[in-house]
């Protein structure tokens, strides 16, 4: 990589950091419990809108893994998410009435909060419908993973987005608050992911899964990216470039081995396709606040008219992380 393009990336990073710094004005603190954060705490950052039904299980899940503090940006929820989060003892809440799209889909807001509060901590950046799975997550807490990453001098940990779906049309099984979404969304695609390398940022670009298969069979290049790096030992100079797909400095994107070996990695189980999905897609279509003119949602809406079944006879039923590791979707690397 030439010095010129390296310098260009450096400038891009600084620009994003400055942008995040400017966008801090769009955040209004609601409850600030950041004083309670201890030096070694694991922090979770998230931005959301109208996720009241999902929140109880989301918080329970991550508390169970050992997340110590949640820093959440609420983008104009009107379904009670706001009050619910305000009442949680380990949540610091900000709200923003500004455009999600113009904050680069929330990245600017979170970059700011991470710059301000994440420095020196292991930070997990996930959406309320993403559930982090890592090797040995059924027997070892998140702290075991971060301790091991620290000891191995690894700063960023990859977790591919794995779209989970129900058997039968999406809206037949109703999700109730507090329920484990994967009681409904039990299925996933095990082996139809395409990978290419992004030369500029050095990260992998992964697409595929049920969304490519059902919604984008004729335009696979438009299928959403599934590569994510949600867990990072944060430094205030780091920045997410686009969602949690890409980080800068680019060395952080090297979460894969290039010489034949396997690095350790996890998965983000994606609980997108609950019965609320259709309403959500409808709403996003009118708000037009999503990536690339919300073409993703345009495709969903078109397909949703006939209420599709994402399930097929080769769908795999989720059991545990070991299954994902055997299927080659994630790896233990040299953690044993």
């Amino acid at each position, binding site marked *: 990589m030439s010095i010129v393009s390296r310098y260009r990336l450096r400038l891009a990073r600084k620009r994003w950091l400055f942008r995040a710094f400017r966008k801090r004005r769009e955040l209004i603190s609601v409850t600030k419990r950041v004083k309670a954060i201890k030096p070694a705490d694991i922090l979770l950052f998230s931005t959301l809108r109208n996720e009241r039904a999902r929140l109880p299980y989301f918080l329970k899940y991550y508390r169970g893994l050992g997340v110590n503090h949640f820093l959440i940006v609420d983008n104009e929820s009107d379904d009670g998410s706001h009050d619910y989060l305000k009442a949680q003892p380990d949540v610091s809440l900000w709200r923003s009435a500004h455009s999600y799209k113009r904050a680069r889909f929330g990245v600017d807001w979170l970059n700011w909060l991470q710059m301000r509060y994440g420095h020196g901590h292991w930070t997990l950046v996930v959406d309320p419908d993403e559930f982090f799975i890592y090797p040995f997550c059924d027997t070892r807490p998140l702290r075991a993973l971060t301790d091991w990453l620290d000891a191995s001098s690894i700063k960023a940990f990859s977790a591919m987005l794995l779209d989970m779906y129900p058997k039968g049309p999406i809206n037949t099984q109703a999700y109730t608050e507090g329920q484990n979404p994967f009681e409904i969304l039990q299925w996933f695609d095990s082996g139809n992911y395409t990978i290419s390398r992004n030369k500029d940022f050095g990260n992998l670009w992964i697409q*595929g899964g049920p969304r490519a298969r059902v919604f984008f069979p004729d335009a696979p290049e438009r299928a959403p990216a599934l590569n994510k790096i949600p867990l990072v030992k944060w430094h205030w100079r780091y920045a997410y470039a686009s969602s949690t797909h890409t980080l800068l400095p680019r060395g952080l994107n090297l979460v894969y081995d290039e010489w*034949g070996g396997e690095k350790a990695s996890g998965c983000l189980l994606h609980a997108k396709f609950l019965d609320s999905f259709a309403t959500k897609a409808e709403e996003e279509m009118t708000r037009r606040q999503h990536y690339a003119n919300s073409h993703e949602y345009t495709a969903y809406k078109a397909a949703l008219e006939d209420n599709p079944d994402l399930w*097929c006879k080769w769908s795999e039923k989720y059991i545990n992380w070991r299954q994902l590791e055997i299927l080659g979707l994630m790896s233990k690397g040299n953690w044993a």
Partner: protein
Amino acid sequence: MSIGIIMLCHTALDRAAQVARHWANHGCPVVIHVDKRVTQAEFNAFRASLSGLADIRFSGRYACEWGTWGIVAATQSAAHIMLQDFPGANHIYLASGSCLPLRPVRELVTYLDSRPRTDFIESVTAADVGWAIGGLDSERFTLRFPFSWRKHRRLFDGYVQLQRRVGFKRKIPAGIVPHFGSQWWCLTRQTLSAILNDPERAKVDSYFQRVWIPDESYFQTQARRFSTHIESRSLTLSKFDFQGKPHVFYDDHLQLLRRSDCFVARKIWPHAKELYRVFLTKGPEHKTSTEPNPGKIDRLFSRAIERRTKGRSGLYMQSRFPNENWENGKSASPYSVFEGFSDLFENFEPWLSKVTGTRVHGHLFSLERVEYAGREAVYNGAMPDSAAIRDYNPRSFLSNLLWNTRGERQCFQFGPTDNQAINWQLAKDHNATISVISGAWAVSLFKSDMNFADILKEAARLQRFEQEHLTILQSPWTKARYRIWTLAEFVENPMEPLQTLVDEIRPRALRRLNEAPRMADLSGFGQFLQDLRNQGMQPMLMGDFPVDDSIKPNATRRGRPYLLR
């Protein structure tokens, strides 16, 4: 008779205190060294937490940076206190704050009592050691290391390089034969006091103060001088990964640790509550004579190293995306590619499927759709039959298919009518077996009802594609096994090559083929080729096809492919 325990602690002092109390309560005196970099307040709290116990001492504190003399100095001073204050200690066991005894202390005492003169210390000559990291083995003893490896890695490496280039070598003092091995030993009182009271100790110490990682060589070398009986192994179970950092044990290793019958394990994750609870409370009675048997744990960790360095062949995923030629096998399992067979034989796919008992795909790279076996719309791993998705990343498509079906040999058709983007991938894959009947695509054109002008154009196009494909196959970079017959050769003698192909897919089925696939009717095909020639095209890849249909399948002549690798 008792064992003295020396503990070197720097983090997780609460756990260290717990273990120290365990040793002391079971009659083993403990001398603890706490790293100087631990704050005074933390040290005081730690010391206070152990104040009720008579047989615990604290030694003078040294800063123990990894790879430096501090650790040896700390060990020496603690050993000194141990020998002085506890004359009953016959064996002295060096442990760290993150070590955990796995078997009852009594068993360790009995074990050592029955071997009163044995020193347990891994001690290997510098020439024979295979595990040293960073290429520094014998050079540890002959170079100088004034720069910190942790803080100034570049200076460290640069200075090593410089010394190598200049040819600098330190002199090893007379009488010292460098040995090294695991830092964690168990020495007899006699050997340890001989080492500490060595008349030449000042000289030896000053030499080792500038050796790299002396904690892995000082006692290992000195023990060779004074011990009467060395058992070259460590009683502490401690495994290192490919970066040279110790593997950590967690709660889920409980059963593994229990069955290992090792006395002490390192390193335990400080939050592994279950391990500390189980091993520090009274366990079930053991057969006291059992020898340590870490085989299972060895295997677990060597598998982990292999996964990290070699990975699973044919797997491409978020954390394994090898550069070209570093794949360690481009694909997951062997597969067969057939070119021209389904043009020449009307029922090739079902026939092959029947005689080999495998699922046989059609043209996976057909422009219209992916022709999976049985023309299914979705295949293993939920792969769709969309040509657009396949063509978006043909490499991923093929490696996915082979990964998803690993363990079951894949067979598919290929030809110049298909997407050619996969050409090089096939050619460079040593798992691929490619069988080509060159020019067989002309049979399909011959059978088609297109008008002749279009046929002519199409024939020229397909010939060009196939020519390019064959050139790639015959290039020096090709790793695939391939065979090429011309159409004329194959038609003359089809059974012999078919038998070879089938044997390759089912090597153990020693049955001769008794049923041939149905060959297309070729009467008039020679004339068809002549017509192409007459219109100005040059069909080259079919071989010699006489105009008068005189070519007939001949079962007796042995035909050979003209290229085989």
